């Protein structure tokens, strides 16, 4: 009797052994092997798959190789199977599942769709499409899975997936219902049991009974712990998630996906050595998905970063821009910490780590596998990762506002032990941006206005879904705005302390509806009604005017193109007032300012650009123009303040620092001038000599002659014949002798 057959018999799955071995071997099926594996009978499953891999049928061989983790061979056999029997949808579905497992969702998606062309009612193909969509938190996952279940309500895996999707959306009741449906169909529905365990863990209740059930089916089913870990991470409970990934690995040391996830999440907590070991282990074992590979690359790139540490703050900045960004990032971070510490009445237990990535791809690695945009910054407990201002086009975002936002997360997540719904954490952070500066935070963008006008805002109890699984393209942005406005509304109606009170209520793992009822004294449904009425009072008119504004703005742009300044001045104010928050491309403020300037009316040009600035306009060139106007109108202090605002947006601008340094030096703001000229030096300008000379002059004005001398020597080392520097050196020499 061959080894495969012996193993199969030992597994208790097989049929009649009395017949010839050949007959028995041909009766081995992929399902039988899968059942052995599901029950933790690893050696038996291995033998079973080995036997499959020796079959004549290429499809069976493909399943065999796949079970043996010989993925390339499996792929080849699937290709052969499809070539031999093009019309059989099963082969494409299973091939798609293999590719999905091996990180090739594009081809997997195509295969599932091809299978549906052959068999439009193939539930497994729809399930495959749902699995692919679920990877990217795509809302289509739910639609595909519903179709799969509509075609085959006994599809256990589809119920389990639906339960998982529901739990990702914080729809706990639906998750439990679907998990129960799966278990009703099969007592071995391990992932359904794991969903139940996750529900308990997320609710801070003991999950032991569920894990006991899982162990009784398969004592080595580490994936159950990994599934719980996944949900903990989604709920920003990183430490807990890591602990569960460790348990998953303990039960199944060859779960390379869990090793990779463990590494990635340890990285998120600011560690490097253990993550590298875990990720390299996964990689060495052929687990090479984008997250693993990119995380390893990111770890390699850390040699190009420099770290600044003190008791409360660790800054990780790219070497090339570290000297430039350090003072600005540190100042905003420290101010945020002082503000939040007082406001939230909470002191962080340890230092905060802020990582700033000039290469957006490096930052993007940090958000891989995370829902939502993660576009600018992301917080993992006490670690913040964000785009550097140099990582985007000038004016793309206000990095200081982003950092302020993320620092709110650091406090709220830590003080609530990471038990706060996404909508509240994001809403509060957006709210805090505008509290710090009315020029910061989210403006009502056209897509938000349209969502308001078209009544697309979600009920507060469902708002998390808008972040995790958006139903339309702009829904994440809309949800950020809505959440921020909700917090503004709560503060305006119930006071700022109420927001803190709610945070503490959420920390007790209370659902949104209960917290609103308890802390605000109204039902969630009433809250939604009253909030929408309040919002309508703020932006309803703008939303209603949207089409008119769009048409008028187009006309204004045409007038600007034709330099019809009188028309612009006449119509521009009305266009601006129809939608005052519109400070983006081709906005009425800039058209008006240009028209005023063309007419020689600098005062009104400055006034309109000041409005633009106060409304959160953040195009650096426009703000620099405002500064020039202010300076020209005899308001150098305002000009300096305007330029200083650009430091929050795009500090990688040598001329900005030179101008601001000059203005502040003239205004006797020596520390400010020193900071700005230091920034010029930090940018390693072409004209290093004049940068050092300016810095020397600022130091001298501040009475720091040693540093003045140091810098004048730097100047002359680069340009020995530089007359103004020579004069300053002689002045310093003479002053020194005169002492």
């Amino acid at each position, binding site marked *: 009797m061959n080894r495969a057959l012996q193993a199969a018999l030992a597994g208790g799955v097989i049929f009649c052994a009395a017949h010839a071995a050949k007959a028995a071997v041909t009766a081995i099926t992929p399902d039988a092997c899968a059942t052995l594996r599901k029950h933790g009978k690893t050696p038996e499953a291995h033998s079973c798959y080995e036997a499959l891999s020796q079959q004549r049928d290429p499809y069976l061989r493909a399943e065999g190789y796949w079970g043996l983790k010989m993925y390339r061979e499996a792929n080849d056999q699937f290709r052969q199977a499809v070539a031999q029997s093009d019309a059989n949808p099963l082969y494409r579905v299973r091939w798609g599942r293999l590719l999905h497992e091996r990180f090739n969702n594009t081809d997997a998606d195509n295969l599932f769709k091809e299978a549906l062309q052959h068999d439009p009612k193939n539930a497994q193909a729809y399930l495959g499409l749902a699995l692919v969509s679920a990877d990217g938190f795509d809302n289509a996952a739910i639609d595909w899975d519903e179709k799969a279940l509509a075609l085959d309500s006994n599809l256990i895996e589809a119920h389990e997936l639906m339960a998982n999707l529901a739990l990702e959306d914080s729809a706990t009741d639906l998750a439990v219902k679907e998990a129960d449906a799966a278990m009703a169909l099969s007592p071995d529905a391990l992932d359904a049991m794991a969903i139940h365990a996750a529900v308990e863990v997320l609710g801070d209740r003991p999950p032991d009974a569920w894990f006991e059930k899982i162990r009784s089916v398969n004592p080595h089913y580490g994936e159950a712990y990994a599934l719980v870990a996944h949900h903990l991470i989604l709920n920003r409970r990183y430490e807990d998630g890591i602990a569960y990934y460790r348990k998953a690995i303990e039960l199944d040391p060859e779960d390379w996906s869990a090793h990779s996830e463990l590494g990635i999440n340890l990285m998120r907590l600011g560690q490097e050595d253990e993550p590298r070991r875990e990720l390299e282990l996964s990689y060495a074992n052929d687990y090479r998905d984008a997250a693993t590979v990119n995380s390893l690359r990111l770890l390699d790139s850390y040699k190009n970063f420099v770290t600044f540490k003190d008791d409360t703050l660790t800054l990780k900045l790219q070497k090339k821009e570290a000297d430039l960004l350090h003072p600005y990032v540190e100042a905003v971070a420290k101010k945020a910490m002082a503000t939040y510490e007082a406001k939230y009445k909470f002191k962080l237990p340890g230092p905060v780590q802020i990582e700033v990535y000039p290469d957006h791809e490096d930052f993007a690695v940090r958000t891989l596998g995370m829902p939502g945009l993660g576009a600018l910054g992301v917080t993992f407990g006490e670690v913040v990762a964000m785009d550097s201002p140099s990582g985007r086009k000038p004016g793309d975002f206000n990095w200081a506002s982003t950092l302020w936002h993320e620092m709110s997360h650091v406090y709220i997540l830590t003080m609530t032990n990471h038990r706060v719904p996404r909508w509240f954490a994001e809403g509060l952070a957006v709210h805090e941006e505008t509290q710090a500066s009315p020029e910061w935070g989210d403006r009502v963008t056209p897509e938000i206005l349209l969502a308001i006008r078209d009544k697309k805002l979600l009920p507060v109890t469902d708002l998390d879904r808008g972040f995790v699984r958006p139903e339309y393209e702009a829904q994440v942005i809309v949800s950020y705005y809505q959440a921020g406005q909700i917090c503004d509304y709560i503060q305006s109606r119930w006071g700022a302390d109420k927001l803190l009170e709610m945070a503490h209520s959420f920390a007790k793992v209370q659902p949104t509806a209960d917290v609103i009822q308890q802390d605000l004294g109204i039902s969630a449904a009433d809250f939604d009604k009253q909030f929408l009425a309040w919002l309508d009072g703020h932006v309803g008119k703008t939303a209603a005017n949207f089409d008119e504004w769009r048409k008028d703005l187009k006309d204004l742009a045409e007038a600007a193109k034709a330099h019809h300044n009188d028309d612009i001045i006449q119509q521009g104010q009305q266009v601006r007032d129809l939608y005052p928050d519109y400070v983006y491309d081709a906005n009425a403020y800039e058209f008006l300012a240009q028209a005023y300037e063309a007419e020689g009316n600098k005062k009104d040009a400055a006034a309109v650009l000041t409005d633009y600035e106060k409304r959160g306009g953040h195009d650096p060139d426009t703000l620099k123009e405002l500064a020039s106007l202010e300076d020209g109108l005899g308001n150098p202090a305002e000009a300096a303040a305007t330029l200083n605002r650009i430091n929050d947006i795009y500090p990688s601008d040598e001329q900005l620092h030179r101008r601001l340094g000059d203005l502040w030096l003239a205004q006797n703001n020596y520390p400010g001038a020193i900071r700005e000229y230091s920034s010029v030096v930090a940018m390693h300008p*072409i004209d290093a*000599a*004049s940068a050092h000379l300016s810095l020397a002059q600022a130091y001298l004005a501040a009475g720091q002659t040693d540093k003045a001398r140091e810098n004048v020597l730097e100047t002359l*080392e680069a*340009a020995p*014949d*530089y007359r103004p*520097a*020579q004069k300053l050196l002689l002045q310093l020499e003479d002053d020194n002798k005169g002492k």
Partner: protein
Amino acid sequence: MASVGLLFLCAVRPAHAGTFFVTVAGLGGEPDYDQRFTEAATDLDHILKSSGGEIHVVTLTGPNSTRQHVEDALAQVAREAKPDDDFVLILIGHGTFDGVEYKFNLPGPDVSATELAAWSDRIPAKRQLIVNTTSASGGSIAAFDRPGRAVIAATKTGTEKNATIFARYWVEALRDPTSDVNKNDAISAIEAFDYANAKTAAFYDSQKRLATEHAVFEDTGKHESVRAASTETGEGLFLSNFTLIRLGSAQKAFADPAKRDLLAKKEELEQKIDTLKYQKAAMSPDDYKQQLTDALVELARVQQEIDK
């Protein structure tokens, strides 16, 4: 010590020597490019003509920048220039390279790098510089390269075919005094190259665009173009001694015999400072700083005397 000064004086070209500039704005192919190339050449023309000194400027733009006019302009320079003069040819526009030959796009027939090189060979000026700011300009270096002639190209090879922006910053370098990094009141070819190169890179960086041009130069006659000067290999030395624009009264003092001793002293100190810089790595930081400070203070006092 006097010998050091003499050596230095011998290294520079005679004060009376002039510089011949020929700037050609080629065919844009579309109005936007035509306008851009003409503007750059016209700006350059103004900058050069207003810089004073012994400067001869010929600028060809639009329909005037034909192959025949270019040949005529270079022939005129060949007639007028002396061996001690400098010659600079600046090409602005589009270029093509087919793997063998570079061509500069002009209204009417194009002109090849080989032809331009041959016409420039007739110019007696011993020191020549060709600044080719066009697309694919890297493909022209081999044809232009010869002893006594440096070549600057906006692209490292002939295969960088996208329209370039190097010319914009090359012109800006000659207008912006900050490109004079050593503050000697003159903008050398290496300073202009460094300025334009850095600004070009910064442009692509700030726009988050993949850089499609990488400027290079060749000034050693080794037929190896490089992206940056090196004190170790001597690359960039020729360009650093090639003055394009004088910003101040740098040459005035040479005309005053009463200040010759001071000038000799100044040059001696400048040499000393240069030597110190080369020895920096081998010196203790304190010793270096002290010796540098002493030399710089002395140089400043000498300069003060010269300026009186």
